[in-house]
């Protein structure tokens, strides 16, 4: 019986308020309209138990409808909602862009892997391409016609060669990067980064590598990220460098990557690299 008491109380108070409102009204002109709306409210209150049976969310629905209609009546400025829509659109655009970027990176990595495998004859474990949008070009596009003019730029290429069994390392010098079965072993992991501004200094370090292999021994055995920019020491330095330069050239030709900007990172020989991981 509790709900009955509540219902009755609600009805009584709504009627009282309605009568009060009627007295408050300034003139006759508005009276009919106000009475209409107030009687609708009373009807709604009378119907509320029925509505509870038939649609559980009637109250929420009503509140939502009121909220929207009051917003429309001048509560919030329409400019704000436009702003919100624009923000949503921008978010969607960024999401789409990042998805497209990720897809492009995957595709580029797949093709790079095929090309490297075909030209060097080595098994490539995986190729990871990191793309980023060029900030300068984004700004140029903003001043120009359309905002989404950002161009993706290959910022980093990571080539992981398939590992070769330890006993084959002895045959590395003869292979010189050509034999499919041999010379990959020293170059366990090659990281090629195409980022002209940031990494050009490091590419010099990579080229220095051939002259001073001893200095890189520690870095090679360490973490891959720490070892970036350095060609790891291996038992067969010449095979590794030739393979690296081959990959560099390949990427330069096919992907328009400046060789100066190519950074080649190799982990140490197979055993050391495994220990590092």
């Amino acid at each position, binding site marked *: 019986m509790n709900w009955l008491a509540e219902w009755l109380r609600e009805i009584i108070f709504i009627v009282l308020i309605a009568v009060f*409102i009627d007295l408050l009204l*300034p003139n006759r002109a508005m009276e009919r309209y*106000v009475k209409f709306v107030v009687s609708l409210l009373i009807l709604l*209150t009378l*119907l509320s138990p029925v509505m509870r049976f038939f649609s559980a969310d009637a*109250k929420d629905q009503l509140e939502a*409808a009121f909220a929207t209609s009051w917003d429309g009546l001048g509560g919030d400025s329409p400019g704000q909602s436009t702003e919100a829509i624009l923000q949503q659109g921008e978010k969607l655009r960024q999401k789409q862009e990042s998805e497209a970027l990720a897809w492009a990176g995957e595709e580029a990595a797949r093709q790079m892997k095929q090309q490297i495998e075909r030209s060097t004859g080595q098994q490539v474990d995986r190729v990871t391409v990191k793309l980023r949008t060029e900030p300068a070009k984004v700004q140029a596009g903003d001043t120009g016609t359309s905002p989404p003019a950002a161009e993706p730029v290959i910022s980093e290429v990571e080539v992981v060669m398939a590992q070769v069994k330890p006993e084959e390392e002895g045959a590395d010098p003869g292979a010189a990067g050509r034999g499919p079965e041999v010379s990959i072993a020293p170059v366990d992991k090659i990281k090629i980064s195409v980022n002209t501004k940031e990494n050009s200094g490091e590419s010099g370090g990579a080229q220095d590598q051939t002259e001073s292999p001893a200095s890189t021994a520690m870095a090679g055995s360490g973490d891959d990220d720490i070892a970036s920019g350095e060609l790891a020491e291996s038992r067969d330095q010449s095979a590794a460098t030739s393979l690296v330069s081959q990959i560099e050239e390949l990427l330069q030709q096919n992907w328009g990557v400046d060789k100066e900007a190519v950074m080649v990172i190799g982990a140490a020989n197979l055993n050391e690299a495994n220990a590092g991981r």
Partner: protein
Amino acid sequence: MEIIQIVGLGLIATVLVLVVKEQKPMFAFLIAASTGVLIFLYLIGKIGGIIEVLEDLADKSGVQMIYLKTILKIIGIAYIAEFGAQIVRDAGQESIASKIEMAGKVLIMVLAIPIISIIIETVIKLLPA
């Protein structure tokens, strides 16, 4: 005693308007309008008290606040539209005054739309399809 103040204000304003009307009808209108605004502002505080009591009652009785808000909106629209229309009517622009009143009525009806839609929805659900 407030009613005496208000009536006195109204009487003085009426006399002034009658005196000034012959020479400067423009100033007569300004006096009338400002008197109306003064009385309205005076009453706003009282209306605020009434509304507070109403809200308190509704809160205690468990009436949904959304109903009360609707009713208060209606009163506000009615009062403001009426006030503006009367000032304009004093200035002799009957047609503009009726337009203001029409706007008030339309806005009140807009408030009724969500209620109507929900009632109709309920009725439709009640009836076997």
